[in-house]
């Protein structure tokens, strides 16, 4: 009985120490701050928020949202650059005619897919939390998206290229996964498996885009 005391006291001490340790660990030292780019941050804050606001708007019909999304995308993303990037090594061998048809098919496909994807998360408010300049004109802007049905703020990173007040998004990262990089591996594999025939991918995209939007 008598030696129960020290044990309990130890346990209490340990508890206090643990909580103290926890408290300490939140007072994190300032990160060796890599340069931020306020203009790139401002761009993402404004443009990406606009897209999210459109998709979260309950007063708009799906068709209206589609139309607004179509417009907003051109202001937010560098569509030509992304179109080229997702072709990977095949961007070098694609014929001008194929490129044109691919660009058209990819545009429709990507709009429907990304609209679904972003809507899935029902986010409402985008907040820029920082940015990292990889090199001048190539910046990763970190944000969180919250509100709607999101429990905890969702970290999303935007890779933007440009300069000054003129920027465009080329890729989006969520849970470590970059959309355009993933898309590239997806497409390149599809073309590989078709023996290098890009037309197979194009017709598959055209088929996919015609499927109903909400499943």
């Amino acid at each position, binding site marked *: 009985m008598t030696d129960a005391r020290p044990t309990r006291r130890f346990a209490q001490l340990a508890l206090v120490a643990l909580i103290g340790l926890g408290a300490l660990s939140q007072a*994190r030292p300032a990160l060796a701050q890599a340069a931020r780019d306020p203009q790139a941050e401002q761009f993402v804050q404004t443009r990406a928020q606009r897209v999210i606001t459109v998709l979260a708007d309950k007063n708009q019909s799906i068709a209206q949202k589609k139309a607004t999304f179509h417009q907003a995308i051109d202001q937010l993303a560098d569509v030509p650059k992304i179109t080229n990037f997702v072709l990977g090594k095949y961007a070098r061998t694609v014929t001008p005619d194929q*490129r044109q048809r691919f*660009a058209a098919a990819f545009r429709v496909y990507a709009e429907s897919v990304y609209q679904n994807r972003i809507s899935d998360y029902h986010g409402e408010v985008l907040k820029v939390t*920082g940015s990292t300049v990889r090199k001048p004109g190539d910046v990763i802007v970190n944000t969180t998206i919250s509100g709607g049905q999101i429990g905890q703020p969702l970290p999303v990173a935007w890779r933007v290229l440009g300069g000054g007040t003129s920027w465009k998004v080329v890729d989006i990262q969520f849970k470590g996964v970059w959309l355009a*990089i993933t898309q590239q591996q997806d497409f390149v594999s599809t073309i590989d*498996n078709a023996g290098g025939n890009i037309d197979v991918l194009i017709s598959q995209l055209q088929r996919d885009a015609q499927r109903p939007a909400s499943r």
Partner: protein
Amino acid sequence: MNGAPSRTLTKTSRVRARTLALIAVGGLAVSAASAHAQNAAVEPPPLVAAPAATGDSVDTAYDPLQGFNRGSYGFSMGLDRAVLRPVAHGYMAVTPSPLRRRVSAVVYNLGEPSTTVNDILQGKPKRAGRSSARFLINSTIGVLGIWDVATGMGLKAHDADFGQTFGRYGVRPGPYLYVPVIGPSNFRDGVGRVLDFFTDPVGIVGGGYTTTFGATRLGVQTVDTRARADTAFRALDDATDPYVTARSAYGQYREAFIREATGQVQALPDFDAVPADGAAVSGGAEPASAPPETAPAPSEQSQ
């Protein structure tokens, strides 16, 4: 009468306390050894950062067992469609998402001790302190983990597992592996998962998957995980090659998770350099390069 049992009780609790202290000291010792690394990159930002290190997109595509993996993938997705998806969708249909979030929180809380084990093995005492404080606080004040009160106290959640611990000490992922039913993995993370199972403190105390507690936990965890992954599954439906999309996403996700522990920086592809020849950045039929939008009005305000 009472003396003997109570003494054994105190003895075991003292032993347990001593073991705890030992583990803590062990963790500190390990961390002292790597103090330099710690100082170099304390708490790397969760997402991404600056210039090139070693690329990881090559690793994500290392798939010498593709034949087996594709078969395993097809089988597992079929099984998902037949069993797990209907169960998860049923669960999502009958429960409101606030309730599901509480279930997820309980499941997550039970994983916290395993996180602490790996924090210690990684020589990260602060993270270990945070995850163990979270477990104590959320299990008590947060009522068995239903409420994540610790986050409100500034103790933010983080994950850790054996795959990450291996990665933190430089182990490469090795060949991609699609484990039937269980899902995407690789040699490193597969071994990690097995170790996670055998070292999970909650699993050890709860008596593995044979007890009612263990079986319930496994069942709830499986449905919860599948429900939370539902958007990812839907994203796979949109892919032109779902197998490769899952492989790519898994590889990127895991490497990002391991960079959290190493503090390394991700190497990213160059969007301007894809076409090998020609100065035009994104030539072809599309209007070349980014036609810089005629400067957006500087008055644009954030919300």
